[in-house]
């Protein structure tokens, strides 16, 4: 199973310094997440679509990812139109659809998708290893970055170990169903994965101490920001401020009207 589907590539976004991409992603996400108007949200979606275009990723994979992530949003579509208080625009028996509910569900859909696309094009175009080093140079505590880098390193290993145990269980005719036997079996499979991971952690820890590990990783890639990185961040910040200005302008208009 490959987790990092989008980090390979040679587009402008793949080459931009991860530190600048993190800063850009935080700024844009903040602004879009707090949009209250449709105009701001759509503008944000536009910006993130432009970024997606620049990242030149496999379109079908991005679409598939978007479908998966929209499940929580689908839950909101099931709930909000019926339960959000407001003017009724359609009613059938006890079910009433409110205008405000539909509007809010729509707004959330646009905002959430804008942010997901942003995330794919800005952060998922770097490996977690690069992001971890970038976070450290941005001032995130050393211990936290170590946890991030180590667990990133071992996710695939732990997953493979679990899959191996699950495969062994399948060979022995284990068929998951809703019963106690299933839950006990899953617990034991997971427990065994934990035991193996734990002993692995001890072994790796000892091996690293033996080689003089002092709590720091020395990366071969010294990050150096180019002029292009600064221009990129500048453009993104201008876009973020434009969205915010649009929002403020609209809310002022609403206030006066």
């Amino acid at each position, binding site marked *: 199973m490959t987790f*990092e589907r989008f980090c390979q590539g040679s587009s402008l976004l793949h080459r931009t310094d991860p530190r600048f991409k993190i800063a850009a992603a935080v700024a844009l996400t903040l602004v879009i997440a707090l949009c209250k108007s449709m105009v701001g949200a759509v503008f944000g979606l536009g910006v993130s679509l432009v970024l997606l275009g620049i990242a030149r990723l496999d379109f079908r994979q991005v679409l598939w990812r978007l479908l998966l992530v929209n499940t929580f949003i689908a839950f909101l579509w099931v709930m909000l139109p019926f339960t959000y208080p407001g003017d009724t625009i359609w009613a059938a028996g006890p079910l009433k659809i409110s205008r405000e509910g539909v509007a809010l569900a729509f707004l959330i859909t646009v905002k959430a998708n804008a942010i997901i696309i942003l*995330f794919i094009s800005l952060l*998922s175009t770097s490996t977690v290893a690069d992001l971890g080093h970038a976070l450290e140079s941005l001032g995130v*505590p050393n211990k936290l970055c170590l*946890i991030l880098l180590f667990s990133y390193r071992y996710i695939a290993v732990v997953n493979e170990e679990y899959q191996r145990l699950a495969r062994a269980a399948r060979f022995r005719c284990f068929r998951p169903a809703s019963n106690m036997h299933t839950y006990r079996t899953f617990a034991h499979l997971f427990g*065994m994965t934990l035991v193996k991971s734990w002993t692995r952690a001890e072994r790796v820890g000892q091996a690293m101490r033996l080689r003089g590990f002092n709590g720091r990783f020395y990366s071969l890639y010294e990050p150096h920001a180019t002029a292009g990185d600064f221009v990129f961040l500048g453009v993104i910040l201008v876009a973020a401020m434009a969205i915010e200005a649009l929002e403020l302008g609209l809310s002022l208009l609403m206030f006066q009207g």
Partner: protein
Amino acid sequence: MHISEGVLSAPVLLSGGVLTFAGTAIGLKKLDYDRIMSVAILASTFFVASLIHVPLGPGSVHLILNGLLGVLLGWASFPAILTALLLQAVFFQFGGIVVLGVNTFNMAAPAVICYYLVRPFLKEKKYRAVAGFAAGALSVFMAGIFMALSLALSDSGFFSTAKMVVVAHVPVMIIEGFITMFTVTFLARVKPEILFGKDSDPVSQ
């Protein structure tokens, strides 16, 4: 289990961020460099748990196991869950950066509460199974309550959605209870040092 970006209001996002910041700071302060490897690998195991789908009636739910993580790690649950959620955000775009604080708090705070409430009972053999069930069920229930609160406090119109969130957590809570119970009794038999630390004597457990 995640709240996606674009749903919550600024005050809720800010408070979640501040609480997670504080929790993570405490967790990191209590954590010495020797245990970093264990916390990191438990964070990856926690991530893998979220990929495991357990059948429930006609559908299936994925494991959360924040209660188990809580009794094993205590305050270090905060950095571990923060890491696992950040990796999920980068790999699968579940959750996001601005909402990361709220999502982390919603799962890590119940884990820490379970550490204080439940862990003392795990040491005694006759309470171990019940305590394991309680850790799994309570932590998911509290996570559901916190998630519902984050929604309801963001916008009063989310109230019915928030109630549905809590109701939806009840079946998950029962499954998590059983799985945590079986995992805890399994660990006590197979590798007690994960539960009780290095100096534990396997014979007396």
